[in-house]
């Protein structure tokens, strides 16, 4: 039997604020590794997970490493499906402009920068989540 190319839909669900726990950071580490496997990868930020993408994180005071700039590298890793739960933003008094912009370069269109971010309702997110083969929640 030869090598079969299995391509699965992987969704990483981020539901926690960064720094209070390590889940945001160690989730991101899995996501980056997963890029090497040619799978259909998406990331969801919902509940307190939306805080992971806040601009202007400054961690000198708490003595921890600021890993927020790593999210902007996701596009370079061909990870360009980022779902953000609109209701989670609203409950927190946040808007999309409070979050980092995440982009990827489209080779087919002369490396045009395109946004990776999809602002979705819970109903839409529920539908997308339901189509996944693997959901990992951190």
């Amino acid at each position, binding site marked *: 039997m030869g090598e079969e190319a299995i391509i699965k839909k992987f969704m990483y669900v981020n*539901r926690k604020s960064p720094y209070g726990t390590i889940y945001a950071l160690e989730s991101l580490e899995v996501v980056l590794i997963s890029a090497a496997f040619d799978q259909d990868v998406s990331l969801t930020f919902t*509940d307190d997970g939306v805080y992971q993408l806040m601009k202007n994180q400054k961690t000198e005071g708490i003595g921890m490493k600021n890993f927020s700039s790593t999210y902007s590298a996701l596009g370079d890793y061909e990870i360009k499906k980022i779902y953000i739960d609109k209701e989670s933003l609203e409950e927190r008094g946040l808007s999309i402009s409070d979050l980092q912009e995440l982009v990827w370069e489209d080779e087919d269109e002369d490396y045009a920068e395109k946004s990776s971010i999809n602002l979705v309702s819970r109903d839409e997110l529920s539908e997308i989540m339901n189509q*996944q*083969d*693997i959901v990992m929640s*951190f």
Partner: protein
Amino acid sequence: MSMLHTVNKSPFENSSISSCLAMCTNDSSVLFIEDGVISVMKSTKFSDLIMDSLSKYKIYALKPDLEARGLSLDNVIDGVEIVGYDEFVDLTTEHDSVQSWL
């Protein structure tokens, strides 16, 4: 596709139950395990939420976790199915994927 959702936190302490229910679709099932089994008891602040959900999704609770906490099986909300680890395994394989609300 059908999805099994597991919830392992007390609804009194943690909001994961409402995040989970917001993501469920018609072919979803919800399995309460560990401290999550508190959710399926009658006469609590959250009983109505579970009873409403029963018309939409299948709801299960892990028997060994109920027993450990001294929660009487007689006081589990009618319609919630009480299962063991063997059925937990079956639920996993019968659904297309599993999402753990941690």
